[in-house]
């Protein structure tokens, strides 16, 4: 492989890799770094690339590791929530007796074709608005489908931290979607 190939990777797969990374990391800068790290790592490892997977598959596999590395670095900079920490944003969703403060509105039929692309856009926008680590753990779990045990191990956080982050992320995501108009009148 030579110069041409590394550039070809960037030309042909750069946008794709960026979109995958952007969706997991919820930050343009982090996603750009992950793409760069991936291509540099690919360049170093190009002798080991046997060519039995497509370049995109191979590059995406490297990217997954770079994404987890980037999130792991974030873990060190952020205070992880624990169960006993009150979170005012969560408190606001419930009354003191533990009932919902506002009724949970139905979504109608979210898989109906007409609303689908809007809903997907809204999901991405709402996830971007979560706090960084919360957004990233949420995406690793829900979009990438990693198991929580794997997420904890890779990021070096406890299962409890993971569940608290996921619970809050899911509450906020639902609320955000509802605020963005994804509440119909059907059951």
């Amino acid at each position, binding site marked *: 492989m030579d110069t041409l190939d590394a550039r070809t990777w960037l030309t042909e797969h750069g946008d794709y890799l960026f979109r995958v990374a952007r969706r997991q990391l919820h930050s343009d800068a982090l996603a750009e770094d992950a793409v760069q790290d991936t291509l540099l790592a690919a360049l170093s490892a190009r002798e080991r690339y046997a060519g039995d997977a497509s370049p995109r598959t191979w590059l995406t596999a490297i990217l997954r590791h770079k994404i987890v590395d980037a999130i792991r670095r974030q873990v060190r900079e952020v205070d992880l929530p624990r169960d006993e920490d009150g979170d005012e944003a969560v408190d606001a969703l419930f009354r003191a007796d533990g009932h919902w403060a506002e009724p949970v509105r139905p979504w109608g039929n979210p898989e109906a074709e007409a609303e689908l692309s809007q809903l997907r856009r809204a999901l991405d926008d709402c996830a971007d608005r979560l706090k960084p680590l919360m957004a990233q753990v949420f995406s690793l779990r829900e979009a990438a489908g990693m198991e929580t045990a794997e997420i904890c191990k890779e990021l070096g956080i406890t299962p409890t931290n993971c*569940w608290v982050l996921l619970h809050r992320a899911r509450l906020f995501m639902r609320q955000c979607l509802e605020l963005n108009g994804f509440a119909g009148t059907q059951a």
Partner: protein
Amino acid sequence: MKWLTTCRETTVLASRAQDGHLTLGERMAMHLHLAICANCARFARQLQAMRRLLRADVVDAVTPGLSDAARRRIENELQKKLET
């Protein structure tokens, strides 16, 4: 294990159920609550719908790709690496 959970507690269980980590008692308490609470039942269904939508979605070409500045920067880095 308590059998009567509040809505707030039930959302914790419903969330953890998505990750497959409920004890038998927790699962029963959750289903008991979901059977009588429309709000929490919707919440649980919406968590599942959210996951289906996020997993079904392939990255589409509508979202922005690499910026020109980032692309140039990465190209420079690749070039630097090739020269060493």
